[in-house]
């Protein structure tokens, strides 16, 4: 079985797959790759099941040594990757020969880059998933971000090595967006008409304290509804809650399972991967869509992801 030796971990690198759904009743949120589309495509490029575990790097990538030959792919944002000093192409599979070093740098585009390896990364599953849940220190590699000197096991190779790349169509249609589409939130009518207008007409800036739990926004203060008594309730991925103080927070993959702030809107599922690519200081805004649009966009995106046209 092959390994990946972590020479430099990067700023914040964790093992992630598509997360663990089904444990909301004990307070465990799904977690998983913040940009699940990129992880799925990376796995497709190396011939894995799309839910195999890969490495999620944040803002600054790591340096990894492959003692044995491995088929790799990098997806998501451009972290200026080089294999033994030679630049490697993003979103296309490539081979690391025994002893080669893959070095990534700071991002040139969005927040996260995914490294997928044929066979997937092998860690002990927690509640059926390899995803790291940082807050509780569970899952992934010892429940934490990678450190210098870690060695990660690679699963058995799943077949012949064949290099592939993403199609232009997939690249174009799955480009991360800065205008996030949303549906009405469960408490949207608690907010005044002017508060809602302000929310939809304003540009928001992603705050530094954003992480896998939530994306904090700076910009126009949304007047918080008064009067209604909010009782804590279950919250969905992409929920946009407005706490006292009026600075919206978008819940991300390692979200709390319940919350007590009113939610003005919810990012639609096809834009979740865009949330995973938001960096501090990025500017975003919100665009309201109806339920049918959200649904047909989801069907379209999944059709594209499932099609053969994704890879060439």
């Amino acid at each position, binding site marked *: 079985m092959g390994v990946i030796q972590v020479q430099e971990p990067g700023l914040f690198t964790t093992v992630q797959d598509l997360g663990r759904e089904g444990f909301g009743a004990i307070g*465990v949120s799904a977690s998983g790759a913040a940009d699940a589309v990129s992880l799925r495509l990376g796995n497709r490029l190396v011939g894995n099941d799309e839910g195999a575990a890969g490495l999620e790097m944040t803002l600054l990538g790591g340096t990894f040594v492959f003692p044995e030959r491995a088929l790799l792919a990098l997806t998501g944002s451009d972290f200026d990757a080089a294999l033994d000093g030679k630049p490697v192409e993003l979103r296309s599979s490539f081979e690391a020969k025994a002893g080669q070093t893959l070095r990534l740098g700071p991002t040139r585009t969005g927040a996260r880059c995914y490294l997928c390896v044929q066979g997937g990364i092998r860690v002990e599953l927690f509640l059926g998933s390899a995803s790291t849940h940082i807050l509780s220190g569970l899952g992934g590699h010892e429940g934490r971000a990678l450190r210098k000197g870690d060695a990660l096991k690679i699963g058995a190779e799943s077949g012949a090595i064949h290099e592939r790349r993403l199609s232009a169509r997939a690249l174009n249609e799955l480009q991360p967006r800065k205008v996030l589409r949303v549906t009405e939130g469960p408490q949207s009518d608690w907010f005044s008409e002017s508060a809602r207008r302000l929310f939809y007409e304003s540009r928001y800036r992603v705050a530094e304290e954003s992480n896998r739990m939530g994306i904090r926004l700076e910009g126009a203060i949304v007047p918080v509804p008064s009067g209604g008594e909010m009782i804590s309730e279950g*919250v969905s991925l992409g929920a946009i809650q407005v706490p006292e103080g009026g600075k919206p927070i978008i819940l991300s993959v390692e979200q709390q399972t319940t919350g007590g702030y009113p939610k003005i809107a919810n990012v639609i599922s096809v834009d979740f991967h865009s949330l995973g690519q938001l960096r501090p200081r990025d500017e975003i805004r919100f665009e309201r869509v109806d339920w049918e649009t959200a649904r047909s966009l989801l*069907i379209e995106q999944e059709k594209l992801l499932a099609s053969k046209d994704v890879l060439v």
Partner: protein
Amino acid sequence: MGYTFARMVTSAGEGARFQWASDQSLLVYFGQKITLQAHQQVRKLLRLLELEPVAGVRNLHPAYCSLLVKFDGLRLRHDEVEAILRRYFERLEEIKLPEPRLVEIPVCYGGEFGPDLAEVCAIHGLIPAQAIELHASAEYLVYFLGFVPGFAYLGELPEALVTPRLAVPRRRVPAGSVGIAGNQTGVYPFSTPGGWRLIGRTPVAMFRAEREGFSLLAIGDRVRFAPISAERFGELEKEWA
């Protein structure tokens, strides 16, 4: 029923109400108040959905008087989920909930473990021994687990201890901290940010990957807190490490 632009609210009968939460989830509300009856309804629906899972439903997040149902939007539409849930509602009466377990949680109150105990006492004109006696004398109900893995929302706090949460939440609350907020109390399973007033700490792990069921507490459990000394805290911490 067609999809519209607006926020979607529909009556579900039996006093329940549906609220679409996102394009792949909806909330079921059993009233808009924290009541024992609403809690029982939430538990019964949760139990029925666990016993007879609906294909395409991915996750369930119970809370005081609501249940968030997350589903696969490729397999189910909101109105289909609503129709299925309506049929489940008709059977809630037949659901027998298991007898509640009584779980005792040892707590070392005050001092460095309960940095807000003094202020809570000042607010209510109590001495620490009285506040501790009040907190430890009540039997609490686990309304639900939420926020983070294993965090149990416990109620009701004795009237004389009801205290608003901190104006500015702490960035880091140590794991095991016992807090109060409004008429709720709870134990932080992990070191997380938090705005509840901390009155003590338990050496018991609230959530463990190695434990069956993972969480010490489950929805519907009964809980009592037992005061222990700092010395005993140290012993138990070592014993359970």
